[in-house]
Structure formats: C-alpha cells, structure tokens
C-alpha cells in the first residue's frame, strides 16, 4: 500500500475517532438550562374553529443538569391550563425538574389535553454523551 493511499485511508478514521472522543469526553454545555415553548396567539380560536393542529409536542424531553427547566409562555388571548397551573395571557411558567421520571400533565394547548415530560438523568458516560449529542443534532436538523 502506498504512503499517500495509507494517509488518505487513515485521516478520515483519525478524524472520526477524534470526533467520537470529543463527543464522549467533553461535558455538555448549553447556553441556557431552560427549554422554551410558546403557546401562540390564536391557539384557542383555532381550536374552537375545529383546527386540531398541535402547537406543542406531545412529549417533551428534558435532561437533568443540562436542560432541566421547562419554560412555557402563553402568548394566546385566553388563559391556558398547563398541568399544575393556569397561565394568564402574557404569563410564563418556569418549572424546574430535579428528578428523572416521566411526568404526565393536563395541557389545554394540546388537542389531546395531555402532555408528557420525560426527564432523564445527565449523561456522564462517554457513550451516553455521544448518544445525547447525536439525538440533539438529529432533532435540530428535523426542526
């Protein structure tokens, strides 16, 4: 095998190993621990008109120590019930989580009236961090 050919073969492999090492060993940092969701203006009116469009995802995933605060903003003209509370128009609700679990909440912004929040432990092992980063990247890509 010629030297240039060996290098051409080796470089992508080294790059992949480096990327995996970075993704596995570098602690995850995000700009804010809050994951923001907004209930847009006109949600109630749309629902009353028979529009079953989902404003918020049916399942929201949070990760302890990284993104473990749910921030909901009610931009609608009417109060919205989210799980433990009622949010007046213009109000925000900031809900921190400290325990990994699956939480079921009543949510009037959902056509189903239900919302699930999955709170998972902070990824500390290299393969957990890699999996977390890949999943975040895929979710961002999917929009």
């Amino acid at each position, binding site marked *: 095998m010629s030297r240039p050919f060996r290098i051409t073969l*080796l470089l992508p492999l*080294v790059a992949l190993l480096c990327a995996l090492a970075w993704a596995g060993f570098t602690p995850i940092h995000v700009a804010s621990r809050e994951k923001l969701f907004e209930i847009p203006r006109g949600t109630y009116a749309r629902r009353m008109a028979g529009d079953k469009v989902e404003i918020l995802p049916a399942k929201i995933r949070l990760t302890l120590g990284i993104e473990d605060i749910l921030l909901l903003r009610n931009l609608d003209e009417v109060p919205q019930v989210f799980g433990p509370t009622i949010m007046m128009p213009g109000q925000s*609700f900031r*809900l921190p989580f400290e325990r990994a679990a699956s*939480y079921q909440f009543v949510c009037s912004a959902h056509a189903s009236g239900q919302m699930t929040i999955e709170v998972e432990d902070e990824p500390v092992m290299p393969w957990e961090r890699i999996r977390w980063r890949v999943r975040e990247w895929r979710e961002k890509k999917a929009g």
Partner: protein
Amino acid sequence: MNPKLARFGISLLLGIGVAAAAPPRLSPPDDLFKAGTLSPVMPAPEIALSGTDGKPFSMARFRGKVVLLAFGFSNCGEVCPITLATLAGARKKLGAAAGDVQVVYVTVDPERDDAAQMRKFLGSFDPTFIGGVGTRPQIDSAQKSYGISSSKIVHADGSYSIGHSSSIYLIDRTGRLAAVMPYGHPVDDFVHDLKILLRG
C-alpha cells in the same frame, strides 16, 4: 511509527483534553424556587367559600401570611393524605416561622365534605389547617379560577372517588400567586420555598 503521525495524534489528544476540561457545573442559586414560578406574578384568584373554622373563606382573609392552597377531598385514599402530611411536615420543620404559614384546603367533593367532615379530616394532620367548603357551583367556580380539573370515578359497588389536580399553590404575604408546586415534592422542597417567601 511515523514521528509526524505520532506528533499529530498527541496534539489531537491534548486538544481533546483541553476541550474536556470544562469548568464544573454550578448548582442553581439557593434563592431559586423548587416549585414552578409564574411571571409576571399576579394576584391569586379570589375564592368565596365557607371556612371549616366557621368564618368566611377568602384569600383576602389570609393576607399577611404565606398561604399554601390545595384542592382535594376527605375520602381521598392516597394523594390528599400524602399532600397534607407533607404540608404538615413542612410546617413542623419551619418551627416558629410556621406561625406565618397558613395551609388552606378546598374540597372538590361538596356532596360529601361539609365543614365538620373537612375539619375532622384536616385536623388529623394539623389543627391549624383551614378547609374551604361550599355548594357545587361555588366549588366549580373556585376550581375554574385555579385551572383545577376533577372527575368522578364510580366504582362497581356504587361508591366513588375523585381524580383531581394535585398541585399546591404558594401565595405570598401580599396575596400574589408566586409559585405552584406539582404533587410529589418532598417536605424539604416546601421548606426551601417557604423560607424564600417568608423572607420576601
């Protein structure tokens, strides 16, 4: 091994090491609530009921104290006893400061919960707890103000229980709805948040 390749590999590993040596994550500041917080903070919706202490039950009546408000019923087998035991535990842990904390519990079962029944039920956890009772329309109105849902579950033997929202509302001394604690938080979380409200 090719010395150039070795140097390249060592440099890369050092780079990864530097990137991985990020500063440790800081714990959240102690003045942040464990409960969910609303912003902007608004006055707690008013409730007009009868109190189990024989006086009218209204939120205005409790101004000057930090109020823990929850909804439930005396025949509740699980959620309400746990909630009330937790709130009683928090008051106990606060010591003398508990005098400035009022727990109020509104029934979602006005057909069975009269003042005497609720007084007996609440008194078994803490004699200072005050219950709110009233007619079905009055209770419905109170539930609607706080976004409380409840539904009757009829059993095969004809008896029934009630599924209901189980959050605890934390109201500051000026009557503003400051925070909402979802069901299931331990005593220490309440003590933590009550200390913040008592300071404020």
